[in-house]
């Protein structure tokens, strides 16, 4: 590890110890009460993950086919 990444890691550790809330993820996913907004975010994330997984699965199938044909 070079000097700059070490300094960044040290600064991040200090910040995490001193102001942990500032480093937490956005409050939509954390520290929020259940309700329509939280449900909406969960469904939206699931939809987006489903779409992305489908596209990535398509790429995986194509790559597998590519490898199989090259052998």
């Amino acid at each position, binding site marked *: 590890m070079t000097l700059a990444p070490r300094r960044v890691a040290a600064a991040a550790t200090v910040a995490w110890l001193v102001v942990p809330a500032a480093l937490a993820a956005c409050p939509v996913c954390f520290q929020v009460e259940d309700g*329509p907004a939280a449900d*909406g975010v969960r*469904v939206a994330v699931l939809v987006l993950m489903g779409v992305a997984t489908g*596209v990535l699965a398509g*790429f995986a199938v194509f790559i597998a086919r*590519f490898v199989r044909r090259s052998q």
Partner: protein
Amino acid sequence: MIPYTIDRRADSGVNNVTLGIWLFIASEVMLFGALFSSYALLRVSAPAWPHGRDVLGVWFGVGNTVVLSVMTALVLRARAVPPAVGRQFLAVGTVLAAVFLVIKGLEWRGEIAEGLVPSLNTFFAMYFTLTGLHALHVACGIVANVWVLLGASRVPDGMTSGRIRAVALYWTFVDVVWLTLFLLFYLT
């Protein structure tokens, strides 16, 4: 530079045109996927969500579904027939795509005249955004079809067949997106 070949590559099993259009469709799926995710977020978190059957012209949607499905079937059929016949199918399909846009335009005009505009609520904001983007894809597809038809007299038949296969894949995607929109906005 990638050579323009119409032969299938031994390694991938598809030609460059087909591979290119699949990659393009993958990027389009991500674009619409992000918007469908936004739709899910807004719909689930909304305190009230109007029923599509109550606020939209369902028969406009049904008509457009029939037109676009027939159009897609024609273009898919154009892949399996000789290029000369395939061009005729593609031409009829292009006219049907234009009919889709006309119907959509009439529907939008009526809705806007009634004050059903994007700023009214999130339902109409999403409705105009998604159907507008889809209509833009239909318009681009029409341009692609015209390009294929006009270029058919200048390039070999094999090349035209490859182009028809590419636009057929594109129109299948556009049709699937429309069916999803029809389900989300008009029927649920």
